[in-house]
């Protein structure tokens, strides 16, 4: 069959009411699930999977993809409104989204999250269609040594989210690394800080840590100092994103989208690091650097572009190689196989019409996300009008339900509360939470890949320099650190000068 035959046949597969309904329904389910803390996109996709068995292959897969994309966007809603990331991927959105909501700009933040998400989603889908083959073979050249250097480089993001004091950011990060060592050793399976407790052997639940670190401290801060409701100006506001603002953030969005595409096409990294990397790049390049973390709309745009850029790109290794990039795509592979389809290079030959139908469906999904997301924002906007005295205890019990739901385990609620007190201690001591979280995500990846590389080479460090990719990331890491030291020194001399100036007055 020629390209056009495939395209027409694909068109017939997609251009029916069922496919549209599946996509729209999937996105709606995803947005709602994503907006509920603890209900991650992964859970939503896993729960939807059994319903797709009875459907046409393309309809079922489009439904799952809709849930996935909706879920990634949906996570930004609670991140902005109640400082609780709905999915891990939206934790970077908190950094500027929540301050914007506190300034009465929740509507604007949500709007920008939606525009950035849709733009990034579109770019990600187009990259999938145009570069799938090329990016997939590139992704396969990532072995443990390449991953190790990439993650080492990613850890430099910590500097970008440390706020005023780099040293305190590093402190938070190293405690994140420490907490991530709880569990079983990767290579020998021996106990590490788990006191032979079966609950601790699996490590600390990521979502419990995430929610504990961001949402609970906010509640404790409210308990420490209950503000009277009249002080609060937290209405959603009739403010919308202006075209000028979108244009100002456009470069950031594009950059974030490509960071997402790049990290998404490499299996095993996920959306959260992409969002943080995009955020720190945006901050580094922005003229409004000082405003980041205090309610800068560009920060919201960057992180949402980063995490949505991943969504389409994770399908690159899936379709081109049959390799799942994360748990969600692993479930989607299952859906392919139930319908007798085997993703991989042969699928482009044997079932090209299905592939093209998927591509068409994906493009449509970006458009549908725009409308359904806009509708969801209108629905959830009422949360912003809830008075703090009711909202705070409400968030607490929502988090209790959500964290329990992740693993059906009361132990995770204990972890969430413990992390909440740690987070509150950090809040009171000006120790930023974001570096802690990044280190908690990346630490195990760094350690595992380092040790896998060492296993491969029988303990020789040469393997860490085996390819141009490793050299590239070593170089990038060195350059970033050098730049950090340079800005750090000039900031210090600035501060010293300012001090002299004030003492002279």
């Amino acid at each position, binding site marked *: 069959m020629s390209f056009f035959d495939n395209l027409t046949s694909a068109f017939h597969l997609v251009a029916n009411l069922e496919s549209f309904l599946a996509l729209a329904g999937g996105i709606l389910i995803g947005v709602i699930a994503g907006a509920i803390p603890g209900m991650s996109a992964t859970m939503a996709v896993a729960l939807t999977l059994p319903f797709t068995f009875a459907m046409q292959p393309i309809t079922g897969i489009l439904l799952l993809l809709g849930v996935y994309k909706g879920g990634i966007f949906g996570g930004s809603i609670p991140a902005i409104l109640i400082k609780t990331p709905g999915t891990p991927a939206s934790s970077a959105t908190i950094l500027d989204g929540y301050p914007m909501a506190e300034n009465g700009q929740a509507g604007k933040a949500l709007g920008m999250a939606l525009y950035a998400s849709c733009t990034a989603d579109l770019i990600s889908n187009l990259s999938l269609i145009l570069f799938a083959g090329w990016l997939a073979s590139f992704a396969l050249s990532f072995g443990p040594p390449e991953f190790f250097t990439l993650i080492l480089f990613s850890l430099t993001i910590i500097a970008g989210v440390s706020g005023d004091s780099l040293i305190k950011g590093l402190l938070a990060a190293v405690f994140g690394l420490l907490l991530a060592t709880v569990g079983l050793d990767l290579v020998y399976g021996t106990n590490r800080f788990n006191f032979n407790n079966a609950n601790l052997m699996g490590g600390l639940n990521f979502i419990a840590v995430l929610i504990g670190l961001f949402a609970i401290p906010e509640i404790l801060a409210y308990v420490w100092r209950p503000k009277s409701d009249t002080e609060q100006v937290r209405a959603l506001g009739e403010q919308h994103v202006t075209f000028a603002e979108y244009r100002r953030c456009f470069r950031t969005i594009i950059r974030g989208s490509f960071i997402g595409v790049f990290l998404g096409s490499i299996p095993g990294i996920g959306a959260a690091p992409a969002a943080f990397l995009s955020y720190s790049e945006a901050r580094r390049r922005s003229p409004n650097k000082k405003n980041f973390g205090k309610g800068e709309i560009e920060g919201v745009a960057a992180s949402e572009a980063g995490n949505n850029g991943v969504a389409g790109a994770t399908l690159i290794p899936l379709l081109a190689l049959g390799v799942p990039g994360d*748990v969600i795509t692993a479930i989607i592979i299952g859906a392919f196989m139930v319908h007798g389809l085997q993703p991989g290079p042969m699928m482009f030959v044997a079932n090209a019409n299905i592939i093209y139908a998927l591509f068409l469906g994906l493009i449509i999904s970006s458009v549908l996300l725009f409308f359904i997301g806009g509708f969801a924002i209108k629905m959830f906007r009422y949360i912003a009008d809830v008075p703090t005295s009711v909202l705070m205890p409400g968030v607490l019990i929502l988090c209790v339900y959500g964290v329990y739901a992740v*693993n059906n385990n009361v132990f995770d609620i204990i972890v969430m509360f413990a992390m909440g007190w740690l987070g509150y201690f950090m809040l009171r001591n000006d120790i930023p939470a974001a570096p802690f979280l990044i280190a908690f995500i990346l630490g195990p990846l760094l350690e595992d890949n380092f040790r896998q590389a060492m296993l491969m080479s029988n303990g020789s460090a040469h393997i860490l320099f085996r390819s141009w990719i490793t050299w590239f990331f070593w170089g990038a890491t060195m350059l970033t650190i050098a730049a950090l030291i340079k800005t750090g020194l000039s900031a210090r001399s600035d501060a010293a000068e300012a001090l002299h100036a004030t003492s002279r007055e």
Partner: protein
Amino acid sequence: MMKDLGRLRNAAVLGLATLAAGVSAFVVTEARAEYPERPITLVIAYGPGGATDISGRTLSVPLGKIIPQPVLVVNRAGAGGATGAVSVRDAAADGYTMMVSRVGTHTVNPAMKATLPYKLEEFDEVGVYEINPVACAVKADSDIKSMDDLIAKIKAAPKTVSYSSSGVGSLLHIAGAMAAREFGVENPVEELIHIPLKGGGAAATAVLAGTATFICTNSSALASFVANKQLRPLMVTTKEPVPGFDAPTAADLGKPNLHQLVGWSGIGAPKGLPAEVKEKWRGWMKEATSDKEFLDAMGKRGSVIQLMSPEESADFIQKQYNVFKKLVDDLGMRIEG
């Protein structure tokens, strides 16, 4: 006064005793009511989307139609299945907490891990329902064309050939070592490099990316790579050939011991499951595993549906455990500390 108090106390005791009798009578009648009278929780000790999860959830669809009460499927993942298994062991053996037992939680982990917080004897089994053949494979463009080539390569240059697994104490970990040993590698722990990864998908990808030389895992995990000619199968461990895998069986190669090396899923429960509950499940499993849609969905994923009775299942699991235990002891693969 004292007498009054004493009488009061007597009355109180009598009252309490009556109450207790009444309550226990109530409880007894409750227990006599037919099982199940409330929803049954089915614990999956692995995360959503994994092979165990999909298998368990697919089975729960026909089960839900047959069992008069709802079946709640619950994921409780962590520590290679240990977290979920411990939570089931600690539950009451009343038939309301069941689990999807799996080769990892029930035979490989107990055989390999000295510090595992549970033991195989602490579980009952109501039926193994699924067998997953194990296949060994290398990258398609590799110069290794057969198991003999692989073994020759290991012997020619020890400590250069590696195999990937989904983690320490997984079926893949033991499978690579067992296969190599059956084909004459004396000490696979020393002569092979074991590279543990996070999860089965990552393990297969590692072979594809050249991080590891070979992998031995469930054939369903390799099916799409084999169909796409990205990986080359060297062997399957079953007696019968596996559809889609153009490779000799262990029987063809004269290694009948390897028939024990298969993955499986079943339904397990805490030790001491009442006989009537077991009987109920025997019937349900029989009905559920003959459901057409279930057979269809599982067959397409490459698993062989083969229901065993509770007795056969216990026997099968014990036998596999013994084989793995002996191998682990012989090779010194036991995970201590």
